[in-house]
């Protein structure tokens, strides 16, 4: 939370220790007091409260319930918690099990073992609400405080979702009740603000000043204050003040002042209707005055109408007690429930009703007719900020008598700067009809953030990367050869990796042991391209994940980066962080966050397995990327296992500095190039069940490739090409299987040198030019010549052949053509005759190619 970073929090115990354990020298407490240093407010969190705990991702603190608080022997404040997990914390593949949409506010009762439930008390951010719901129940459509309230429907034990057991359900409920929450058929809750003023006050302060919400909070607090203690006279004073100070606000206040005099019920009705018009589409049951009163809570919440609500709160003073009950029902949850349950009423009805409602105040405020309401709001919106601040000040004046004087000053500080933002937000609400239709008028800024304004183009950020689907389904392989070709494609993933069992076992054991220990470590894997390094490592990860599913291993996170797929070595940080937490930040920031993450003990963190492919490309001059990568696993709490993959065996010695190399450690593994037998086995295992190749043909391919590079990819490509050649040939005769001839042809095609062929197909003068070059080389004894020298030889050769000798321009053209094919290596052409020329292939090759003529 941003406030946490802005203000330093001081944690102190609340009350005396309840019990103490002499032996362990621990003291247990029933609450903790969080004091914000710069605002000097206090929050008391008691056992059983729901709290936010700071986690990996600063935007997504963990949700937990406080179970125990104690001070250990070293005087560290500790807390024992029951975790709840957010959807984001559940692995992607498991989310499917849920089979339903989950809102961002839903959390799951966490029954996963292995998370550390003992945390440092300093990581507690603040208290929140967690509301248990039955599975079938809808989430309340609107929420008072998006960040403060969570819902729990199911529990999660690492493998499947379960409905909350009645035991837990009731316990959770009790926890809520203990905090004085009044449940209304288990759906409606009053935010704790109203009941526990202390907490509420501090919360609204703790919340950052930029949040538009806290004005509402402040005002609400004033309501509660007025409800409980304030007298009627002060309110009237305030009205008077208002009238004098803000002439623009007078209209609104006037609108309400008669209603006040006319009595509470009437006033409510008018207000309700007013609001109804404003929302325009909100269904309303006209007869039920109580419901209308509920709507006024909208007024309370929505900033532009704060003056009205404030006035209304004054009117409440007459019947403070009655209002209190109404206020309770003001909690948005109930309200929305009612909305959703109600049928929509035709607008006309609302209109007539509202007209009736307006007849009374119309004399005073002709401006506020239903039609002009919106424009009026737009006009006044600019003035609202002014009004709000005014009202706030007055509110504080009135509150100053009460016991919260200290905190109210804080509030003032916080509220005033935020009003400009509020102004814009509220004006936006009125200009966009859609958002005003939203039931969540209460928190306008929040809803605006969540739902993008209609008409704004989709920003690139939320574009989904996807290739359009193909129209026609891909054809299935028809013949044996096609089937074989499909299996031979490098992308086809075999069930097992033959010939790499040993390496597989080594890597598996390494990662497994580290996982079980919960420690970190590095492993360096090298081997020439196409020896199955990446495939083996992926296979290991797959097996480990399998094991995790079978509960044999603790769960882990798997992150993969590829040096080639990064544009810059520092982007590695960004990618890792994005994999781990889903945040998108700049490289430098990501590095800081990651270092933080891996160096501090996280309560809920799983072990991370990081695969770094193409390690050598992460090389930078200062090598800080590699240094960091290999430094993290050595940290005590990192729980990071790194599998680094690269081609060269001596990479650590060659390019790394000593300190980097030493951190990499000595766990090395090198993948030897495949031998021909292994290659043969690979092909055969892929072709299992398909009779497409002759035994000898397979052997030929594997021998040939093993002699050259031992690259399995090459081997498979040759086989694939051979099937194609076979298919061409089949059109004449019908051989079903690939024979030696086909394979030989494929190999020739891939390995033959193109130069000789290119020379043979060159034009006559090009060939003569090559001959002239050879002659010049022989004359000078140096493998380099200028065009001028070659030109003389060329002319002489032409005379011998009886051809017309070319001009210098033509010679230059020939020279550049040969240079483009890289038969010759030539300099930049601005040197003209003094251009130096060199052959790109051996003289013997040229002679061989030319002699055939």
């Amino acid at each position: 939370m941003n406030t946490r970073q802005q203000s330093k929090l001081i944690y102190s115990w609340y009350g005396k220790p309840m019990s103490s354990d002499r032996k362990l020298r621990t003291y247990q407490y029933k609450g903790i007091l969080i004091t914000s240093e710069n605002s000097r407010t206090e929050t008391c969190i008691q056992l059983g409260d729901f709290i936010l705990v700071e986690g990996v991702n600063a935007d997504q603190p963990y949700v937990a319930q406080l179970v125990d608080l104690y001070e250990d022997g070293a005087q560290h404040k500790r807390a024992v918690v029951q975790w709840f997990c957010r959807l984001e914390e559940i692995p992607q593949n498991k989310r499917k099990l849920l089979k339903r949409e989950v809102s961002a506010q839903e959390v799951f009762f966490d029954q996963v073992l292995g998370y550390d439930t003992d945390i440092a008390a300093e990581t507690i951010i603040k208290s929140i609400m967690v509301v248990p719901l039955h599975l079938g129940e809808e989430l309340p459509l609107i929420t008072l405080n998006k960040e403060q309230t969570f819902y729990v429907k199911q529990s999660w034990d690492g493998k499947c979702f379960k409905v909350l057991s009645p035991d837990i359900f009731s316990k959770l409920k009790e926890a809520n009740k203990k905090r004085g929450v009044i449940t209304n058929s288990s759906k409606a809750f009053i935010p704790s603000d109203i009941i526990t003023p202390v907490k509420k006050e501090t919360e609204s302060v703790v919340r950052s000043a930029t949040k538009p919400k806290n004005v509402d909070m402040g005002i609400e607090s004033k309501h509660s204050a007025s409800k409980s203690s304030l007298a009627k006279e002060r309110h009237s004073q305030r009205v008077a003040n208002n009238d004098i100070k803000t002439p623009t606000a007078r209209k609104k206040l006037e609108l309400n002042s008669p209603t006040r005099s006319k009595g509470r019920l009437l006033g409510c009705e008018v207000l309700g209707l007013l609001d109804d018009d404003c929302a325009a589409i909100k269904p309303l049951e006209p007869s039920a005055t109580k419901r209308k009163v509920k709507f006024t809570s909208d007024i309370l919440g929505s900033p532009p109408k704060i003056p009205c609500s404030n006035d209304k709160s004054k009117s409440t003073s007459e019947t403070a007690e009655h209002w209190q009950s109404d206020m309770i029902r003001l909690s948005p949850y109930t309200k929305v429930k009612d909305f959703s349950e109600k049928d929509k009423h035709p607008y006309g009805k609302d209109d007539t009703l509202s007209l009736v409602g307006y007849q009374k105040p119309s004399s005073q405020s002709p401006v506020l007719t239903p039609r002009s309401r919106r424009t009026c709001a737009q006009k006044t919106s600019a003035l609202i900020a002014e009004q709000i601040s005014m009202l706030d000040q007055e509110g504080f004046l009135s509150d100053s008598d009460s016991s919260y004087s200290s905190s109210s000053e804080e509030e003032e500080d916080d509220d005033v700067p935020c009003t400009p933002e509020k102004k814009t937000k509220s004006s936006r609400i009125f200009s966009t009809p859609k958002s005003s239709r939203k039931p969540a008028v209460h928190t306008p800024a929040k809803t605006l953030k969540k739902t993008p304004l209609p008409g704004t183009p989709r920003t690139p950020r939320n574009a989904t990367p996807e290739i359009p689907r193909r129209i026609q389904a891909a054809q299935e392989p028809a013949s044996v050869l096609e089937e074989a070709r499909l299996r031979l494609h490098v992308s086809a993933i075999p069930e097992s990796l033959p010939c790499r069992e040993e390496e597989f076992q080594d890597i598996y054991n390494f990662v497994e042991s580290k996982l079980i220990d919960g420690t970190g470590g590095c492993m360096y894997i090298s081997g020439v391209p196409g020896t199955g390094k990446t495939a083996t490592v992926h296979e290991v990860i797959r097996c480990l994940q399998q094991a995790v599913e079978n509960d044999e291993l603790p769960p882990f996170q798997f992150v993969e980066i590829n040096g080639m797929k990064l544009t810059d070595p520092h982007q590695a940080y960004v990618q890792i962080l994005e994999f781990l937490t889903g945040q998108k930040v700049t490289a430098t920031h990501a590095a800081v966050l990651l270092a933080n993450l891996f160096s501090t003990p996280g309560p809920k963190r799983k072990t991370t397995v990081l695969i770094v492919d193409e390690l050598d490309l992460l090389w930078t001059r200062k090598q800080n990327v590699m240094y960091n990568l290999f430094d993290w696993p050595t940290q005590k709490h990192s729980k990071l296992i790194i599998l680094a993959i690269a081609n060269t065996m001596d990479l650590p010695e060659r390019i790394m500095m000593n300190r980097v190399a030493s951190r990499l450690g000595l766990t090395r593994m090198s993948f030897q190039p495949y031998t021909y037998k292994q290659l043969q086995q690979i092909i055969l295992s892929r072709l299992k069940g398909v009779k497409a190749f002759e035994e000898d043909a397979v052997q030929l391919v594997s021998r040939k490739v093993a002699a050259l590079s031992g690259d399995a990819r090459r081997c498979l490509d040759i086989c694939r090409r051979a099937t194609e050649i076979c298919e061409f040939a089949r059109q004449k005769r019908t051989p079903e299987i690939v024979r030696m001839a086909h394979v030989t042809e494929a190999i020739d095609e891939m390995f033959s040198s193109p130069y000789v062929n290119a020379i043979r197909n060159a034009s006559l003068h090009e060939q003569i030019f090559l001959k002239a070059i050879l002659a010049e080389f022989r004359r000078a004894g140096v493998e380099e010549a200028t065009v001028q020298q070659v030109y003389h030889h060329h002319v002489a050769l032409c005379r011998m052949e009886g051809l017309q000798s070319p001009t210098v321009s033509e010679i230059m053209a020939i020279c550049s053509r040969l240079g483009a094919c890289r038969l010759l290596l030539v300099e930049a052409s601005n040197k003209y005759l003094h251009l130096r020329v060199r052959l790109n292939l051996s003289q013997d090759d040229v002679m061989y190619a030319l002699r055939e003529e």
Partner: protein
Amino acid sequence: QHRHLLELLKRTTVHGESNSALIIGPRGSGKTALLNHVLKDLREMKQVTENLLEFFMKNPFLSGLLQTNDKVALKEITRQLQLENVVGDKVFGSFAENLAFLLEALRKGNRTSSCPILFVLDEFDLFVHHKNQTLLYNLFDISQSAQTPVTVIGLTCRQDILELLEKRVKSRFSHRQIYVMNSFDFKQYIKIFKKQLSLPAEFPDESFAEKWNNNVQHLSEDKTVQDVLQNLFHHAKDLRSLHLLLMLAVSAVTVHHPLLTAADLQEASRQHRTDSKANIVHGLSVLEICLIIAMKHLNDVYDGEPFNFQMVYNEFQKFIQRKAHSMYNFEKPVVMKAFEHLLQLELVKPLERPSVRAQREYLLMKLLLDSSQIMDALQVYPNCPTDVKQWAASSLSWL
């Protein structure tokens, strides 16, 4: 070759198989033409039509000369694929974001469901020089893994292209190389010549078309025309130079001169073959010619060693004194001016950049003309004084 490529692309579209190939051949050998032809054939095939609708709309045709680095290339791919982060033909976001986005997009697809994509990388050799060959690695990697089916086709004229690929990139490339060569002989060349020149059947004026085509037939049998063509064929086998020659010839056709003649072709050939530098020499003044001759002599004497203005001037003075002709007696600044004119025409080239310290008279120069070129130019130079010609023939004849 055609069939091979066609099969390859057909499999990508129909079976969703990923492939990669290189088309290698010298300039003007019809690599692009081959590819376009195959694509056209593919489009006509019924079997694939439905896939093609989308397939060809997004057919990234990247040219190494336009996409000078990976960043630009990546943006171009994204734009051509019309992915969702394209706003009105412009791609936003940083290079890293773009790369991650594109990879993510391509990874999401699988063999059976997503639309096959064809990447055509023109001037493939230029992509090789990009930093780390990131783009190539990623493209080939996609083509080697179970992601969106792609076919990567590179067009290049470099025979040694495979040696330029990085080892990891090379391993991922399927080593399918299609060589396009100009392997026809002269008879086929004549046939091509006839085909290029003759008018198509749908030409509006039928009688003229017939007359023209007859003429072309005669031309192709004419001895001089065949000589001209043979000459060209010996020089360059690619069809582009043939087109150039024919274009020159055909542009001579007017209303009064409706049919192409052998003379036209000869004239065109002569224009086609002229030496550019010798042409420049024709336009020089006598003084400048004299300077060039002096340089030639210097070259002969010192065997191609570089010279400076002072040496040339001395050589020129010697010639003047011996001949004692006052008409060639120019002031030194005038000679200097003429010399600088030659420098600007790039008939002479300084060995190093002119620096502030070195005096211009002593800058070392090289002549960019061959002696035979100078002699040829002198032969056709109008009103050349005979003594100059003699001097050119031999520098020692004056002694």
